[in-house]
Each structure stands twice: as C-alpha cells, then as structure tokens.
C-alpha cells in the first residue's frame, strides 16, 4: 500500500459509537464526533490548531513509525495512519527508534532523517520527536537543534540508554528547556530487576529530574505499558511539571481515574504507543467528564507544544 492511496475516512462514527452505550455516549462523542464530522465533510485532518468544528484535536503523544530495515515499513506506516483514521485520532507524535539500543549517532541521525521524510509524507498529521542517545554529547545536542529548529520537530524522545538522572542526560534536558520542547521519556517500574533494560527510568527518576529542572517539560511514557502503574502514578505525585502518557497495551480498569485523582487531569496526555484500541478504549471507559477527557485527548499536549520558543 502506498501512502497516497490512503483514504482518510474514519470508520468509527458517532452513530456506531453511540449505539453501544447511552451512559458513556458523552465520552465517546469526543472522539467519535470528530470522526463523524470528518466523514461528513470529507476533510483531511491536520494543519490547523483545532479539529473540525473547533473541537480540540485528538493527539496521540506516543507513536512510532517503522525502521526501514523492515521490508514492510512503508505499508506499516500507512496502516498506522489508517488506524488513526478509524479511531478519530487527528495527529500522531512519532519517533523512529534504532533497531537496537544503545543507538549510535549515525543510527539516530538516520532515524531522524526518515522521521523528517515522514513528516513531509503526512503533513500536519505526523509530528516528529527527535530521538537521540545522550551519550553522544555534542553530536546528540547538534542533532536535537537541527531537528527542532531546522526540521520542525516538536520534541525529544529519550529511550533507555541512560537513566534520566545520570548527568550525561542533563545537557539534553537543558537544550530542550532552551528550545521550549517536551521530552517524551521511556519509563517503567517493575518489582524485579529488568535485565533487558538495566538503565530504564521510572516515575521516581523523572520526578527527581523534574526537581532538578522544574522548567523542563517531561512526559513519563506509557503508564499502561510500564509495569506497576499504581507505583508510577504515586511516584509522580510530587512532581507537578511531569506529565503522564496514558499509552500502553495493559487495559487495567481504574488507571485513568487514579491518575486523574492523584495527579490531576491537566497532567495526563493521551497516547497509544501502537496499542490503538486499548488506548482509545481506556479513555472512552474512564469515569471522567467530557472537558476532562478533552484535555487528556489533546488539550494538554497542544498547550505544551505551544510553549515552543523557535
């Protein structure tokens, strides 16, 4: 499938959403209403600050496009866009990761080059995170500056090469502050040693980093794919500048409500991390008001992205 063959016509309409539930219909309307209005108007999505009819855009804060070593990368990228169409997601903040970690400088530069091309293939639809390994020092900083200032990327993606409290990470955080862009940081907390990711950060590390850099815009990644989500939420309570990404494959009931209660809805940002129905379903299910869901689905992230300085 070539990207130009994509038809942006969402399959989940307000009507099909609503037929399943009256009591949750208000929540569903946030996403389904947008999908329906796009369907009615035939308009493509993206390129403006708000969605159709002035609604807040639905923005997936955590998505990935495919490494080009994957033979089906182009078709798989298109599948992601089509899935977003089906679910009423307007924009996807994406990164491309190297095939293995730690990433080399050549490796993350290559990924970011592909990311820049993807932003041109899906203008206004795909927003780019610049992925770097902070261990490359000046090379990583130059890459961030090139991507943010020269290529229009919206933020920085950090993975598990270093725990975020290690000093080697600090210059990256300081540059993100200077540029006014968020850092989406891979995170998870398990009650056993994660041998495959010995330097993974968790909510506690991100809270510590936020205390050192209160101006930093940190997003703690995939609370629903990062181990004990109750631990993570509680660890972030005292770090008001850290936002929590709701993505992940785990569909445990109550996670969104607990995060909203402990952290406040202003600190929650909707994400999928490729678990599409899990991500949309948990927001649809959450026992929160429509305005609160609007904030989570896109309002909070849009506000964050407006703090960009260049």
């Amino acid at each position, binding site marked *: 499938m070539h990207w130009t063959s994509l038809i942006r016509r969402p399959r989940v309409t307000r009507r099909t959403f609503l037929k*399943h539930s009256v009591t949750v219909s208000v929540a569903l309307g946030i996403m389904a209403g947008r999908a329906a209005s796009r369907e009615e108007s035939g308009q493509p999505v993206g390129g403006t600050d708000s969605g159709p009819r002035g609604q807040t855009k639905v923005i997936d804060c955590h998505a990935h496009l495919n490494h080009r070593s994957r033979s089906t990368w182009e078709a798989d990228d298109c*599948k992601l866009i089509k899935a977003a169409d089906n679910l009423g997601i307007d924009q996807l903040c994406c990164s491309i990761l190297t095939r293995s970690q730690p990433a080399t400088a050549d490796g993350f530069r290559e990924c970011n080059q592909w990311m820049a091309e993807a932003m041109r293939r899906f203008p206004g639809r795909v927003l780019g995170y610049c992925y770097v390994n902070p261990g490359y020092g000046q090379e990583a900083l130059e890459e961030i500056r090139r991507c943010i200032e020269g290529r229009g990327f919206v933020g920085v993606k950090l993975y598990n090469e270093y725990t975020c409290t290690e000093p080697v990470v600090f210059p990256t955080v300081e540059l993100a502050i200077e540029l006014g862009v968020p850092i989406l940081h891979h995170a998870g907390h398990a*009650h*056993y040693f994660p041998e495959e990711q010995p330097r993974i950060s968790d909510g506690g590390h991100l809270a510590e980093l936020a205390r050192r850099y209160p101006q930093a815009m940190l997003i703690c990644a995939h609370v629903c794919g990062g181990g004990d989500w109750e631990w993570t939420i509680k660890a972030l309570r005292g770090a008001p500048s850290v936002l929590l990404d709701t993505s992940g494959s785990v569909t445990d009931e*109550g996670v969104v409500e607990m995060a909203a209660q402990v952290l406040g809805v202003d600190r929650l940002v909707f994400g999928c991390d490729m678990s599409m129905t899990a991500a949309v379903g948990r927001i649809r299910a959450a026992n929160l008001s429509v305005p609160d869901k609007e904030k989570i689905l896109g309002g909070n992230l849009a506000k964050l992205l407006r703090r960009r300085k260049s």
Partner: protein
Amino acid sequence: MILDVNAYLGHFAFRQLQHNTAASLLQLMDAKRIDKAIVSSASAITYRNAQAGNEELAAEVKDHRDRLIPFAVINPFYAGWQDDLKICHEDFGMSGLRLYPKWHNYRLSDRCCLDLVNAATERGMVISVPIRVEDKRQRSWLVDVPDVPLDELAALVKACPKARFVLLNGLGYAKLPLGHKDNGLPVNYLIEISRLSALLDNEIGQLIASLGAERLVLGTGMPFSYPDPALLKLEVLAASKEDKEKIGWQNIAQWLRL
C-alpha cells in the same frame, strides 16, 4: 446481543478491583450494553482452597442467573476436586470451568488435569483457560507466575478431542498452529479476542481468514480490565455484521445452549 466470555467477581490478591460484585458488574454491563457475562471467582485464583471462591460466586450470582453465567475454578491438584466439581455442576449449576495451571502449580499434561478435563467434559461443561491474569511486567514481588504457553494448550486440545475449550487473554495465535487452518488439531476450541489486535497487524482478521469467525468469541476481562477496549475491537473490525454477531455472542451461546 453481547455475551462476554471473560468476566470475574470477587477480589484479586494484588490489586483492588472495582465492579467486582454482582450488582456493580451488572451496572457496568448495563452501561456498556453487555447482555450476559460468564463470570468466575477472582479470589479463587489465589485461595488455596479454590472451592471457597466458587461458593462465594454461587451466592453472589444466585439472583442474577439470567445474566451472569458462573464458571467454577477447580484445582485438580487439590484434595477433593472431584467433590468440588460435582457440587459446582449439580448444586451451583455451573456450566464450565476456568483453569489456572500456572497459578495453581500443575501442568496441563498432568494426569490429574486430564482427569479433570475429562470429568468436566462428561458433564458437558466448557473448559476455559486464561493464558494470563495480569501483565507480567506489573507482577507483585511475591509471585512470578508465567503465562500459559500456547504450545501447552495446543497439546491439551489435542489430548482431549471431546472436550470444548475457550482460550482467554492470549495473543500470538496467528503465528502458531492454534491459529492455522488444517493444523491437525481438533475443532474443539474458541479463541477470545480481548488481547488480539483489530487494527495494524489485525490478528483477529487473520484468525477469521484462517479459522473462520465461528472460532472467535468476545471477552472483555472486566473488571480486571476496562470493557471498552475489547468492545471497540469488535466495532472497528473489518468484518461482516454476521461475523461480528458470531463473535459477539452466537458462538458461545451455541456452545452453552443459550
């Protein structure tokens, strides 16, 4: 009509559950327009004597049998399981089982497990096996319970061709014999979709193509899980209305003669 094959009542040892009484689960089902649900005791997963959980479940669903269909949790390695099975079937009217081989520390190939499966089959009971209870990354420091390997399940369905199995909370079938057409296995198992993808890789679509929609069933995992993700999978699935009806309730209703 929606019939959820994967629901629970009671407590789980490692996380507080909401909607875990009959009244509150029914309230949630009303909100999600789920007509009926097969329920088992979440408490029985970690009770040493699982029958205590079955007794709690029987009392809880007694006045709601039109919508809540109780399944028994039986540990075939525990004393008196034959008596428990008889009581659950004859006295409590339970029409199926849920097995937890990894939590209850036995193998699906153990003689006692095969004896339980055969005894339940003679009674016409359906046997469901949750591949996992929760994501292993969030497991407690107290336990390290692995998922049930799908090849062990394949061996079980082959060893007990007259039994009828429902495989819950699994994924990755499409790449394994359980998800292949002409796989040499009896046509005696249904696959529940709560962890399968309906978009991107679309494992549900792959299984419809290989096994047919007659082999898939809807389950949500509530109240461990939000019900909406599984319901949403069925909504966005690229399949005919007829196939969605089969998955949503007809296949399991046929097995349970509802």
